[in-house]
């Protein structure tokens, strides 16, 4: 599936800068999360710069999806496959810097105007859309009923457990990993 980068501690400031600039440019477009930028990332990093190959690009996303933490960390993995630890850090700084600054400024602007009708309407109007978007993310990750019926069964069971009980989520993940490794899912 994947290979190690040349060396995790490779010294490559020029590649780090290239990664930083690309992710800096992508960041303000990441409405709905960094995952929506994947096609453009592929165009820039794989097709244009040739910094990593298709296999590494795809496994960056799959591994980050399966590992704990925010999904945006797939950006760190792309940087890591391209240019080691320095590449991971510079990529993360690039993707985070513009969006965090903007998010903080915008949320402060909104919170000082909580009593404005337009702000209340904005928040109320987005609430159902947010719920729908989350459902769509769950839908996207769901195993297909035709090829992975038992996987789908596992998903449905987990959904019911999370909804109706207070079982620790980490046990569900551990259970899923064991069932998957045994070939049951």
């Amino acid at each position: 599936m994947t290979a190690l980068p040349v060396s995790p501690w490779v010294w490559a400031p020029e590649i780090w800068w290239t990664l930083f600039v690309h992710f800096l440019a992508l960041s303000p477009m990441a409405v709905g999360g960094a995952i929506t930028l994947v096609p453009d990332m592929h165009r820039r990093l794989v097709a244009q710069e040739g910094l990593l190959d298709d296999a590494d690009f795809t496994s960056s996303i799959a591994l980050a999806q399966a590992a704990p933490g925010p999904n945006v960390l797939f950006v760190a993995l792309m940087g890591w496959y391209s240019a080691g630890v320095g590449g991971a850090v510079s990529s993360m700084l690039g993707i985070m810097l513009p969006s965090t600054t903007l998010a903080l400024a915008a949320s402060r602007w909104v919170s000082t105007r909580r009593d404005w009708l337009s702000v209340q309407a904005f928040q109320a109007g987005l609430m159902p859309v947010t719920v729908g978007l989350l459902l769509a993310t769950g839908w996207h990750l769901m195993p297909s009923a035709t090829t992975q019926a038992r996987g789908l069964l596992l998903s449905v069971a987990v959904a019911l457990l999370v909804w109706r009980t207070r079982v620790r989520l980490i046990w569900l993940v551990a259970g899923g990993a064991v069932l998957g490794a045994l070939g049951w899912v």
Partner: protein
Amino acid sequence: MPEVATADRPALARPGSLLELFLAFTSLALQGFGGVIAVAQRELCERRRWLDARDFVGLLGNAQVLPGPNVCNLSLMIGDRFFGWRGALVALAGMVVAPMVLLLMIAALVAHADQSPLGHHLVQGALSGITAVAAGQIVGTVLKLAAPLKEHVLGALPSTVLALLTLLMIAWLHWPLLWVLLGLGGLACVWSWRVLQRTQAPPP
């Protein structure tokens, strides 16, 4: 964990220190497989009681329309709410630093394990099991978070229909997110505005 109640929200708690904030976000990020939103809701709303479900969906809605990873925007806003910009940076660092170190180590291990056929088999199987669980976690969390829709200004049925329309447009029709946010989201905002205007300022 000190649970200091505030005057205006007696039912809710707040983090006692920046360190507590950092550790809380590190801990929830490290438990969040296949996305952090499910764990964030569990930890912040139910276990620590720093936010209620309405706050959580509201902040998530703001985080969603702004560029940037949703959960990172969410951690910035929650940190900022309790400790200003320092809190925002500390919460974000908690969300990103430890998981990033762990992920790079996992990537190195997986690359080694993947060399042997048995290792490859086990790794790929475990990954697909975890993905199935992650999908279920998100759906279960949505079912919980949908509770505030019952008291929505547009009414329970219209707001549920809006949520399902969003699902339809994104999951089946594969419409670009930006269009859905601007189109359906804009429509929902204008509609809410008209309803709010009618209820808050009735004609004399």
